[in-house]
């Protein structure tokens, strides 16, 4: 569901009455559906890819090992993309979310090693992530720094902090990953828990964006900053909270991801994740112009990238080809969305 789009009808304006309505040809209705439900296109592509890889690789692709590895690619991208959508709707961006994703489990690890119980360590690590988000947001709105620059800086700072305090040594084992209790399974020790977390936050954040006051204020602030402020919306506060939420979600799934893999590598660079995440948002139908975006689309975009990576590997195509295909899909999605926007604009003129 497109935030800000008509929610209960795909028709933008009053329909001509009675007979003429039936005269609208089917292809136009389908087109209209795709124009107003931007998630549909990536869903169709994803299903198409799934079918293609199933035909090419058969059960090698559809067995749970393969699917879990596709989910493993998609999970981190999806978690970051979901939070990133909120910022893209605000016409902002958070380049540090990927590094927050990697930073959170380190904080948890350090605190646990310092003698704190795991639960407390996780809680404080998430609080630290919220702190990073708050700093991102406050610097952006108070000092009037473009968020691209603010979050680029925090990205490097967090990367540096991890290198410094880890002594450039891998951490292993990390808390929870070796245990088999329910809570550790929930927090990532079970193969599928990460993707389920991502599904859950997708649903929650989509609801936040389309059904809550905070969500409508995000759309308003991103769609018309001055107008929203004139209407009495506390636009700066809205932005800061969105940065906090984005960092929190990245940190949360970051901890789950670390538990899943059981070790931490200080050399991982968060920008890798961010580029995929922004790609997933774009593939899902979110423009970078503000005022519009879809959380579900971002999730679908992440799944699409995950299936593409897993499937290409399985049918024996070189991983290098994967990058080319991701690029092609992003360009295709951008072009399609641009065309859809033009069609909407044209329908308004007539």
């Amino acid at each position: 569901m497109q935030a800000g789009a008509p929610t209960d009808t795909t028709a933008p304006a009053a329909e001509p009455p009675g007979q003429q309505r039936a005269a609208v040809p089917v292809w136009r209705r389908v087109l209209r559906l795709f124009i107003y439900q931007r998630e549909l296109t990536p869903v169709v592509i994803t299903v198409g890819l799934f079918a293609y890889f199933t035909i090419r690789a058969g059960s090698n692709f559809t067995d749970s090992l393969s699917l879990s590895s596709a989910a493993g690619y998609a999970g981190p991208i999806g978690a970051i993309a979901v939070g990133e959508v909120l910022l893209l709707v605000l016409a902002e961006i958070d380049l540090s979310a990927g590094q927050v994703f990697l930073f959170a489990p380190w904080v948890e690890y350090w605190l646990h090693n310092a003698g704190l119980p795991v639960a407390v360590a996780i809680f404080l690590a998430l609080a630290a992530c919220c702190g990073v988000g708050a700093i991102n947001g406050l610097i952006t709105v108070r000092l009037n720094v473009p968020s691209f620059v603010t979050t680029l800086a925090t990205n490097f700072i967090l990367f540096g902090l991890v290198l410094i305090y880890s002594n450039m040594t891998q951490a292993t084992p990390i808390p929870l990953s070796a245990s088999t209790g329910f809570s550790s399974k929930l927090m990532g020790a079970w193969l599928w828990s990460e993707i389920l977390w991502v599904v859950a936050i997708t649903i929650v954040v989509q609801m936040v964006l389309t059904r809550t006051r905070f969500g409508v204020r995000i759309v308003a602030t991103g769609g018309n900053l001055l107008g929203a402020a004139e209407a009495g919306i506390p636009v700066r506060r809205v932005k800061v909270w969105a940065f906090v939420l984005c960092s929190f979600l990245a940190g949360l799934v970051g901890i789950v991801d670390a538990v899943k893999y059981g070790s931490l590598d200080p050399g991982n660079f968060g920008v890798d994740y961010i580029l995929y995440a922004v790609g997933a948002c774009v593939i899902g139908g979110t423009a970078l112009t503000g005022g519009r975006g879809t959380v579900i689309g971002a999730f679908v975009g992440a799944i699409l990238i995950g299936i593409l990576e897993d499937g290409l590997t399985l049918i024996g195509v070189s991983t290098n080809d994967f990058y080319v295909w991701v690029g092609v899909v992003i360009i295709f999605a951008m072009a399609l969305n641009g065309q859809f926007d033009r069609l909407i604009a044209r329908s308004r003129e007539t």
Partner: protein
Amino acid sequence: MSTQPAEPMPPGPSSVEHALEVRGLTKRFGALVVLRGIDLVLRQGEVLGLVGDNGAGKSTLVKILCGFQQQDGGEVIVGGEPVRFHSVQAARAHGIETVYQDLALIPQLPVYLNLFLGHELTKLGPLRFLDKQAMRKLARQYLDEIKVRVPSLEAEAEQLSGGQRQAVAVARAVRAAPKILLLDEPLAAMGARESRLIIDLVKDLASSGRVSIIVIDHNYAHLFELCDRINVMQGGRITTDQPVHETSLEGLTELMVSNFRRELDDLSNAGA
């Protein structure tokens, strides 16, 4: 026509308490002094027209009165109480609503959400879920009441005509049942039929006597129809304050032109 503030007609016996009073209001942006000491009185239930050249400070005055910007000096008194608004919400709490020149609509939001922007109805307590049903219902009821027509409540503001947007913006301000309504060029970019709609709307409001209105407009004919009194603003000051029945269209035009000439003379004298 004199620039002496005329003693205006008191609207009733209880003219002691004004809806709004402004004393010595100043505002500067860096080196640019926009307001040089505004004195203004808005009486209970009247419509006050504000005219002046571009850059005279009209919009700045409105933005201070509605809490969007803060004054550097001077006093604002609402209902006899000195106030200083630090936010639009604070001004709203004192019953001040505004229709901005840029309309402050969100292109991507449907009409009914634009109508409730800034005071959205919510349910489920602290979760603040939007009560879309209630907002749609009230929006429909409300737009019907004031005879504003839009293609659909679900239409995004982007899809409306200029006049429809303007109507929605006015409707949003009026919906909150303000005591003071500030209209910053509410008729700009509107066709004749659409202007008529807004003018009638404002006249209806004014005749109820419950709301006092300040309206900025460049179209003197509109102002003469709407207003009880007209203030002329020049160079950051109010230079003329007259009841509309003592003012003629020609007089007002003449005043504006002569002032413009004087400014030109001042400029050339300063250059010489």
